[in-house]
């Protein structure tokens, strides 16, 4: 297991470098921050000074080498906007995103498993049709539209929840409900599909022939076999939430990493953007390793180190 983890960590180092290089180069194509940070009537001399002070006059490769040199010393640079340590800003924003993503995914998975199993019990039955309709709708509604409609109805018209921010539990309701819908819809369909095929396997019949009741057959025998595809998709959806509840975080003013990224792009705050992207990338690699370990936990046939036979 440790060998496996070590291999995975080493093999993920290169993609991380590529990600940072890409973001580094792309960010600098968006323009010179000098025009944003200096007054409109700034002289060319002031602009040149600003550029030189922040090292932006150097060739791209030199800037990049400087940056990587810093990263190796765990120095991720300072924010142009606030002068704070970029890494600290990213780390401060990340928990808000993680909490939002984790709560959303836990709810989505639990609901999707219940609804998906219920639908799979009788393929093409009433429950299946209802859940199919709901999940299709849930997976197709765009989140920005839903967020705005949600704010309009529940925050402005009814006044039940705040329009934005993180003050109190009620502030969580709208962002989570908005984020939840798509993963829920997609997962219901995955769970339903893999449960239908698992439930038609001979080992299910055999379990029934041993006297296993419906609940035991579904939760004990079928669900674990049906879990792998759902785990893949749930992992993918979580990745989406971790790096980019951008729309929802922006609409609801959620102080997470997505909002930080958008703000740093708009402000040409390169160091913060790079730190945020690097942090997100590391989190996604960690998540992928967790997902792979999840497969191994579920099914002995995909365990990297064979159990002694």
């Amino acid at each position, binding site marked *: 297991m440790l060998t496996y983890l070590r291999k995975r960590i080493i093999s993920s180092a290169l993609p991380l470098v590529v990600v940072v290089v890409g973001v580094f180069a792309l960010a600098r194509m968006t323009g010179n921050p000098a025009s944003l940070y200096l007054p409109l009537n700034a002289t060319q001399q002031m602009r040149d000074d600003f550029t030189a002070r922040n090292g932006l006059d150097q060739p791209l490769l030199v800037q990049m080498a400087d940056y990587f040199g810093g990263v190796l010393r765990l120095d991720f640079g300072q924010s142009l906007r606030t002068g704070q340590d970029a890494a600290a800003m990213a780390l401060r924003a990340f928990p808000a995103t993680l909490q939002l993503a984790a709560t959303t995914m836990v709810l989505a998975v639990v609901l999707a498993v219940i609804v998906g199993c219920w639908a799979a019990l*009788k393929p093409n039955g009433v429950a299946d049709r209802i859940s199919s309709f709901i999940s299709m709708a849930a997976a197709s509604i765009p989140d920005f539209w839903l967020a705005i409609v949600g704010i309009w109805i529940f925050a402005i018209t009814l006044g039940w929840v705040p329009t934005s921010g993180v003050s109190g539990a009620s502030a969580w309701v709208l962002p989570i409900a908005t984020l939840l819908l798509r993963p829920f819809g997609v997962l219901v369909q995955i769970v339903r599909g893999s449960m239908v095929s698992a439930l038609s396997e001979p*080992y299910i019949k*055999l*379990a*029934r*022939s041993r*006297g296993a009741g419906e609940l035991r057959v579904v939760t004990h025998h079928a669900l674990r076999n049906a879990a792998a595809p759902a785990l893949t998709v749930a992992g993918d959806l979580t990745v989406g939430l971790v790096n980019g509840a951008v729309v929802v975080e922006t609409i609801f003013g959620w102080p997470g990493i997505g909002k930080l990224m958008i703000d740093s792009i708009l402000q040409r705050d390169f160091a913060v953007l790079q730190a945020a992207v690097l942090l997100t990338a590391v989190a996604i690699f960690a998540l992928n390793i967790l997902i792979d370990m999840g497969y191994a936990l579920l099914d*002995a*046939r995909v365990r990297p180190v064979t159990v*002694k036979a």
Partner: protein
Amino acid sequence: MKTAADPSTRQNPQGSAGPAGAQAHDVVLQVSDLAVDIRTHRGTVRAVNSVGFEARAGETLALLGESGCGKSMTAKALAGIMDPVCDLADGRIVLNGTDLAALTPKERLKFAGPELGIVFQDALTALNPVYTVGTQLGEAFRIHRGLNAKQARAEAIDLMKRVGIPEPESRVNSYPHQFSGGMRQRILIAMAVALNPRLLIADEPTTALDVTVQAQIMQLLRKLREEGQMAVILITHDLAVVAEEADSVAVMYAGNVVESGPVAEVFADPRHPYTKGLLESVPVHLERGDQLKSIPGSPPELHDIPSGCVYQSRCPMVQDICRAERPALRPAGRRRTPSGTATAAADPEQTTSAGTNDGGATVRPVRTAACHFSEEITNA
């Protein structure tokens, strides 16, 4: 062969070692008028039609027939594990005095395991890939006897010993894919006999195995049958297996039993043209290059079964009456008259023997055939 209706064997408590005082040759299972419907896009078809037979303690009944004749469907109906598109349309499945067909699915669960076990053909897909064999072997004990995980594991090890799996203490923690085909089949059998059921249904248990392993598995089934005085229903298309293993046989064709009786008698003197055709298709004294005999044509499609005899399209003896009227299962063959009516007194169940019964003919097992001309078949 334990087919002779000898009262002395009945009085001899041969099966006292078995569970719940099961006596050898007692009727354990009596199936009558069993009918199974399949719902398809093209309407409902009857896959199993008025099938009847009985299985006796310590004996093997073979259900013989080609693919699609309804033998596996019959097995699944008996075990209560039919596919969702199938319905039990009619019939009685009396296991030890309880009609399983009249029970709700929930009530039947109590019988699944302690009274009735089933072995499937393909042991790899029949075992759950994500659990160790120990977990799966122990499950019956946890469900029906409320044992905890540790006790169930000990029972699993005992079972693995019973079916001849080497090193059960370490193998109990292995997963199905870590076993060979023969060992997997042994595990499946162990699972079916875990709670010493009265009836064991073996649905083509050796079809997926090579010949040497086949022999071992059949030997194991025989041993377990003797130990537990189980009634065994062996579902197969293999005439040789029937001849070697079974005491009695029911030949199925297009969802119907066309002939039944003691194996030796049915095979020596078939009373239905289909049985006769099957037996003639076995190559005997053939030279290389000789033409193998076969039954021309193919079985009717399920949604297109003719109203008369099910075998009419392939029968060499077909007459007008065969197209007009479906023959019922009637006593047939030389041994239709009873040689010892004493058997009837020993067990009241006996008076309602399998198939139709034209009164008095209670010799067991009754030889029956569903053919208008069964007495005219000549077996040279």
